[in-house]
C-alpha cells in the first residue's frame, strides 16, 4: 500500500469514527427516551439513504477527468479541513469548550423525554426522526469525504473500507457500553482528521490548478508535517496569549 493509500484509509477511518461517535450519542438518546424500535428504524433508514447516495454519486464521480476532479475536491477538502482544524485549535487553546458527549447526551435525553408522542407506521415518530436526522447529517460528511477522497485517489473501495472499519468499531463499542463514548479523545481525532483533510486538499488543489509538487506523492508527508506543525504552533501561541490575558486581568 502506497503512502497516499495509507492516508486515504486513515482519513476515512478517523473522519467516520468522529462522526459516528456523535451519531451514536443521538441514537442512544432516542433509544433510551423513546424506545429502541423507533430509534433503530431511524438508524436503518438513514443508513439506507446514505448507501443510496454512495451508490448514486460514486460511479458518477469516476467519469469526471482526474485533474478537474482533484481541483474541485481539493478546494472542498481544504475548506472542510480548515474548518475542522479551526475548531480543534480553538478548543485545544481554551477559547472554546471541549466537546462534551456526556452533556450533549443528557440534554438530548431530556429533550426527547419531554417531547409529545405521535405514532406513525407503528413507530414513535419523534424517536424515529431524531435518530434518522442525526445519523443522516453526521453521515453526509462521511459520505462526502469517502467519495471525494476515494475518487480523487482512484480507489473508492479503500476509502469505504476505512469508513466501514470505523463504523463497525464504534457500533461494537456502543452496543457493549450502551452509553455515549465520552472517553474518546474527540478533539485529538478532530485535529488528526483536520490535518489530513487540509493536507490532501492542499496537495490535490495545487495539482488540479497545474502546480507540480517536488517529489510527487512523497511531498504529502511534507505537507502533513507543515500543517501539523503550523496547527501545533497556533495552539501554543493562542494558549500563551490567553494565559497572558488572564494574568493581566487578575493583576488589574
Amino acid at each position: 500500500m502506497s503512502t497516499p493509500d495509507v492516508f486515504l484509509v486513515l482519513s476515512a477511518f478517523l473522519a467516520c469514527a468522529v462522526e459516528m461517535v456523535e451519531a451514536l450519542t443521538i441514537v442512544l438518546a432516542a433509544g433510551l427516551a423513546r424506545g429502541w424500535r423507533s430509534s433503530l428504524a431511524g438508524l436503518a433508514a438513514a443508513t439506507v439513504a446514505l448507501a443510496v447516495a454512495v451508490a448514486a454519486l460514486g460511479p458518477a464521480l469516476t467519469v469526471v477527468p482526474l485533474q478537474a476532479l482533484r481541483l474541485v475536491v481539493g478546494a472542498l477538502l481544504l475548506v472542510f479541513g480548515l474548518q475542522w482544524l479551526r475548531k480543534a485549535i480553538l478548543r485545544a487553546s481554551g477559547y472554546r469548550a471541549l466537546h462534551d458527549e456526556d452533556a450533549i447526551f443528557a440534554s438530548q435525553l431530556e429533550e426527547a423525554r419531554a417531547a409529545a408522542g405521535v405514532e406513525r407506521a407503528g413507530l414513535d415518530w419523534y424517536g424515529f426522526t431524531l435518530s434518522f436526522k442525526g445519523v443522516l447529517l453526521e453521515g453526509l460528511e462521511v459520505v462526502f469525504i469517502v467519495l471525494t477522497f476515494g475518487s480523487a485517489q482512484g480507489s473508492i473501495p479503500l476509502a469505504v473500507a476505512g469508513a466501514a472499519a470505523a463504523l463497525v468499531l464504534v457500533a461494537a463499542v456502543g452496543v457493549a457500553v450502551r452509553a455515549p463514548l465520552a472517553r474518546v479523545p474527540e478533539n485529538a481525532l478532530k485535529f488528526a482528521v483536520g490535518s489530513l483533510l487540509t493536507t490532501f486538499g492542499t496537495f490535490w488543489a495545487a495539482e488540479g490548478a497545474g502546480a507540480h509538487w517536488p517529489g510527487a506523492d512523497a511531498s504529502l508527508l511534507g505537507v502533513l508535517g507543515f500543517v501539523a506543525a503550523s496547527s501545533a504552533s497556533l495552539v501554543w501561541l493562542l494558549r500563551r496569549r490567553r494565559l497572558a490575558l488572564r494574568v493581566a486581568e487578575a493583576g488589574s
Partner: protein
Amino acid sequence: MRLLRRFGRFWWEFVVGDDWLVAAVVGLAIGATAALAAASVTAWWLLPLAVLLVLWLSLQRAIRSTD
C-alpha cells in the same frame, strides 16, 4: 420557495461553514496558483502559505467574536 432557501442554506452551511473567509481565501489562493502555473512559475508553495495565513486570520476572527 422556502424549501429552496432552506436547501440552499443547508449546502452553504455544509460547504462554507462557520467562516466564509476560509472559502474566499482558499478560492483566491487556488486561482493564484493556477495563474502562476500557467505562467510556468513554480507554484506549489503558495497553497501551504495560504493555509497558514487563513487559519491565523480565521482564528483571530473567532476569538474577537467570543470577546
